[in-house]
């Protein structure tokens, strides 16, 4: 299994957070809110499609709405493999965190 890249992980997480309403703009905003990282829409989309190629995301076109010039959205959902990859990524991190005694408990953080 491929190790997730940082941006890939963040995008995948955003998609999971936005269940049912994960598309370009909403993911872009979510990422902006949570990370403060300036991203272009294009960067978000390249990552989304890469994740889809890897089988971590599915997508389908949503229904037309009156906003956004009547254009339909492409809605993304995480697949089982995607969730599995997130879990794997998290467990790698946690093993590291546990290996650092000073960081092991939240109280010793300061």
């Amino acid at each position, binding site marked *: 299994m*491929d190790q997730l890249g940082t941006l890939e992980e963040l995008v995948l997480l955003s998609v999971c957070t936005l269940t049912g309403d994960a*598309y*370009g*703009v909403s993911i*872009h905003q979510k990422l902006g809110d949570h990370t403060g990282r300036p991203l*272009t*829409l*294009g*960067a978000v*989309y*390249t990552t989304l*499609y*890469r994740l889809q*190629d*890897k089988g971590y995301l599915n997508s389908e*076109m949503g229904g037309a709405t009156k*906003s*956004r*010039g*009547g*254009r*339909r*959205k*492409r809605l993304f959902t995480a697949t089982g493999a995607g969730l599995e990859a997130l879990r794997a990524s998290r467990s790698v991190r946690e093993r590291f965190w546990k290996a650092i005694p000073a960081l092991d408990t939240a109280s010793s953080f300061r």
Partner: protein
Amino acid sequence: MNRGADHTSLPGIVLWVLNLFCSEEHYEEFRGDLEEMHELRLKSSRVLAASFLIGFDALSMLRVRFRSKRSSPTTFFPIGMLRNYFNVALRSLGRHAAFSSLNIVGLSVSMAVGLILILFVRQSAQQDEFHEHADRLVRVYSDFKSSINRNNALYGTSPANLSDLMEREVPGVERAAKIRSHFRGTLVYQGTGLPLDGLYADSDLFELFSFELAWGDPATALVNPGSLILSPSEATKFFGTEDPMGKVMSVVGGRDFTVTGVLASDTYDTLFPLDAIASYSTLEAVPETREMLDTWTRSIYGSYTFALLEEGASLEAVQRSVSALIPIHFAENNHIRI
């Protein structure tokens, strides 16, 4: 899919970029996302700033087309390695900027000159190759000592009446034509005068070479003194759409000419100046000129002899026969070769 110009808030250039570069597959979602994004931004910031940002976003969308396929880690084409080589080359060029630019400029200039030379040689080699009998056509060159240059020199010209002699006395020559250059001056018709660069020839011109007439009969057009054949462009300049046949024109300081033909094309790939062709008999009609033409030492300047060899005739034999004419017909120390 609808790409029509429906209601939109996006700047025109964004739509243009999208229409130009976005694939059908992604158009709907990208267009929608850009619309939504732009409307959001318009609420919080100025139009100019929002337009700038949305343009940037639209450009960034193009990356989707070029995203790398990570799923196939071993590619046959080592793109990374080549990119690296390219970078190294660029950096070393940059490090020796002065020397590199000298090299590059030198190389490009030399390549340009080389290309021009190649084109020139190619063009020269192709010239006059379209004639039907091009492989059997030869021109007589003369190698002689003159009052002007003390040493022998090679001329493309030859004595004016050589062609008649060759036709009569040289075996292997099927047909020979005489052409005289320097039919020059200003041609005038009803107050319109134009400079011309042409030649004198008789109907043998059409026998030897594959020039064709749009108007007039090649066999008779150059028979009478004062006959004139024009190129199509010259004819148009003087007569427009009128029929040029039979029109009388004059040459400033010279005689009148009657148009007896018009060439079929302006674009023969030939060395001959074909603005206008006057009949050779025009020259012969003037007694002094006639005398000049019959004198080898005088007519050798500006007269050309072309010959059509017989099928299978040996060029060397013809050359020898032509040279043998000299002691018979002209007892001076000239050397004429084909």
